[in-house]
């Protein structure tokens, strides 16, 4: 097996590089930027490793494959926190909590006392919730930085270039992991706009991601340590603007404020906007044409599904095993 070139150093590319390196391949990663930054979708990720919660609306493979994620990230980085997920709703939207419970698994119902034990700062604020104890979350930027450092330490080569995967494929096996950037080469790949915030609010301490159910704007708040919180994320079909709208900003801040009034005094540290690459069923796909393999469509499940997708890419390359999310037709 000669050198394998991976295009794209976001979560998909770095995980694929790690999986191939672990199988003994000689790996080169090419990206148009020298370091991970705001131009990558992964930079703005929530970092929730919550396969069961995602099962509320995602297809079955997302729930099953996503269960590989927490162990994988914990083995490769020190960025994983295994504290579960707490799902709550305002009293008037209790019907949404009931529906969420009906569509998901691996949780237990918690009452006001247990919520207080799990999250002392939310004591008395919510009467009912769902606790997904086995779920985890990670700090996305730290995780990718560590993953990249580990790859460099183990001999992977990183190059900066605005790469054309077809040209690389003429010279050797190439994996296109560019995400939304590859949209002109992949049929049916669309962008789903996501907006997120990072708030600083040292007054509030949370131990785990909190999901706030709402009929129109379900949102989550993920603690990032040092009083920082990630609030996300909108999902807007066909919104390609690179800026946040006032409405999205209002809704996300309102959700944070509804969770705890102290968020009213939070400072807005960052505002992130990006396009998630997605196929029509919102499930990722791997395709192959000659020397070029494309792995794309992680949608809102980058950190959750990249390890499984990387494993399948490595199995395709090393064992000639056809991935379950393989699509022959995608050119």
């Amino acid at each position, binding site marked *: 097996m000669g050198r394998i070139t991976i295009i794209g150093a976001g979560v998909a590319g770095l995980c694929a590089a790690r999986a191939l390196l672990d199988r003994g391949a000689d790996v080169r990663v090419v990206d148009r930027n020298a370091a991970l930054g705001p131009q990558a979708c992964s930079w703005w990720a929530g970092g929730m490793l919550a396969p069961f919660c995602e099962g509320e609306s995602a*297809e079955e493979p997302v729930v099953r494959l996503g269960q590989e994620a927490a162990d994988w990230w914990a083995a490769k980085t020190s960025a994983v926190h295994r504290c579960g997920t707490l799902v709550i709703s305002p009293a008037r939207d209790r019907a949404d909590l009931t529906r969420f419970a009906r569509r998901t698994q691996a949780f237990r119902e918690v009452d006001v006392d247990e919520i207080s034990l799990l999250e002392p700062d939310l004591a008395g604020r919510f009467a009912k919730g769902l606790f997904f104890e086995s779920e985890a979350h990670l700090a996305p930027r730290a995780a990718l930085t560590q993953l990249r450092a580990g790859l460099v330490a183990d001999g992977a080569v990183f190059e900066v270039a605005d790469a054309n995967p077809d040209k690389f494929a003429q010279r050797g096996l190439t994996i296109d992991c560019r995400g939304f950037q590859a949209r002109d080469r992949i049929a049916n790949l*669309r962008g789903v706009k996501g907006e997120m915030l990072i708030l600083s609010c040292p007054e509030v301490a949370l131990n785990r991601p909190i999901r706030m159910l709402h009929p129109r704007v379900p949102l989550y708040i993920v603690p990032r340590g040092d009083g920082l919180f990630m609030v996300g994320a909108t999902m807007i079909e066909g*919104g390609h603007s690179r800026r946040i709208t006032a409405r999205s900003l209002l809704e996300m801040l309102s959700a944070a404020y509804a969770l705890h009034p102290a968020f009213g005094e939070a400072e807005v540290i960052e505002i992130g906007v990006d396009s998630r690459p997605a196929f029509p*069923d919102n499930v990722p796909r791997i395709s192959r044409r000659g020397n070029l393999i494309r792995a794309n469509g992680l949608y809102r499940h980058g950190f959750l599904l990249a390890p499984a997708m990387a494993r399948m890419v490595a199995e395709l390359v090393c064992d000639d095993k056809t991935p379950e999310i393989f699509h022959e037709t995608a050119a």
Partner: protein
Amino acid sequence: MRDFYGTTLANGLMLGTAQYPSPAILADAFARSTASVATVSLRRESGRNRGGQDFWKLVQGLGVHILPNTAGCHSVKEAVTTAHMAREVFDTKWIKLEVIGEEDTLQPDVFGLVEAARILSEDGFQVFPYTTEDLVVADKLLQAGCEVLMPWGAPIGSGLGLNNLFGLRAMRAHFPDVPLVIDAGLGLPSQAAQAMEMGFDAVLLNTAVAKAGDPAAMAAAFAMAVSAGQLAHTADPMEPRDMAAPSTPVIGKAFLE
């Protein structure tokens, strides 16, 4: 079927395109629903940037009539601007006009609605106004140029069904020749059937299908309910009565004491 601004629809089911778990499930739901109309809401942001092409192409690919929607507009000006963008993007004169007046119930601001309907009708739009069952408002909408009315069943997304049966019956009776569509509030197929049995010309729904555990199955269920209700209406249902009316003759029955 009655005609909607000169277009005769194959059936009385209109289905929204928001809130589905994925575009693939949306497409399945439409296939199973056999709906004749798809509503699609246009974000003003996307309209300005000519973004959203991927999603709109998908909706256009459903092969049904497109009814763009001014969802989420709270003022006449917003609604009119959105309608113009929609006409450009979807190349249709049809516009579902929503001017929201109250944040908790999302009920229409009927004053703004009438004004926006007049402006848009004069500008050549064919307006489908989302209104209440109020007869005076309905009359003003017709005077403003509307040829279709869309009274609510219940607040948007509530799934409560037909909240004011008396009001809706009165509306149907008062405007026998105007196409009337029950828009919003339906949660179950039985409620859609009820609306069609009452003689409404169509129902429009979104959340009940999009948020079901199996949207495609629920879409199929609504399709059956709508055609059942429509068929029942044309079959001239019996009148309810207070006393039992035996369905078999009693005269001639043997006395057994």
